[in-house]
């Protein structure tokens, strides 16, 4: 066994010894992963795992280093990039990945990626065109 494996075992026994908690947060993450496109909220997420809202929030943050909300936003932005690359309109993309307002989607997209959804899409589509032409 390498020194690194010993270290992993040591860390596992400190950080990941509570199997119940791990299964709970993995369940929540999977739920977000499969349902990012619908209206998700903390009550719903905690109900799925039958734990209190605040306990769920604390656990998720403890194991994933982000709140479920931050995690969900990143997932939606990632998915929206795929949609925009495929030529889906900005409005359609916004609702397809679960955002409820075009304004907040555009603002979040710009904050997270440095470009507005429209700029991002133009760039992606023109890049593809250039690649074809050369």
């Amino acid at each position: 066994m390498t020194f690194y494996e010993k270290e992993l075992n040591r860390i596992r026994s400190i950080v990941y010894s509570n199997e119940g908690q791990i299964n709970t947060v993995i369940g929540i993450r999977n739920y977000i992963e499969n349902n990012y496109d619908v209206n998700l909220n903390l009550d719903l997420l905690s109900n799925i795992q039958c734990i209190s809202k605040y306990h769920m929030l604390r656990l998720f943050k403890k194991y994933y280093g982000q709140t479920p909300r931050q995690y969900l936003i990143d997932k939606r932005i990632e998915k929206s990039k795929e949609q925009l690359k495929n030529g889906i309109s900005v409005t359609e993309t916004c609702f397809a990945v679960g955002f409820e307002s075009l304004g907040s989607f555009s603002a979040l997209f710009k904050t997270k990626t440095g470009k507005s959804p429209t700029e991002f899409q133009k760039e992606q589509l023109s890049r593809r065109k250039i690649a074809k032409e050369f």
Partner: protein
Amino acid sequence: MKVTLISIPVRDQEKALKFYTEKLGFLKKKDLPLGGGNRWLTLVSPEWQDGPELLLEPAPNHFEPCKVFQDALMEAGYPYTQFDTENVDADYKRLKDLDVEFSMKPTEMGTVKVAVFNDTCGNNIQLVEEL
């Protein structure tokens, strides 16, 4: 300021380029001569070509402490860095079939699953899948 680059030390840039493109599947992005046979050589993920670049640096050949550090990490089995994957088990199988050597099989670590392979250029690299 923006974070755009991850650098890893390699003993042989040409060999590293072959391993990282042909076996791992990265794409070459930049390749320019820096004199003395050294290159500024960067790669990107095929599915994220405007994402961070991986710089294959010939540092161990020019700066002894880098070589010492790299050797010590290798010996202890410590990964120099890690790459995300959607499926560690699938990548493990694919790379094993390409004769890539693993020092650690896919192993669950709480909310992630990890595996460690040898990049043949002086480093252990970890693959991580979020569970």
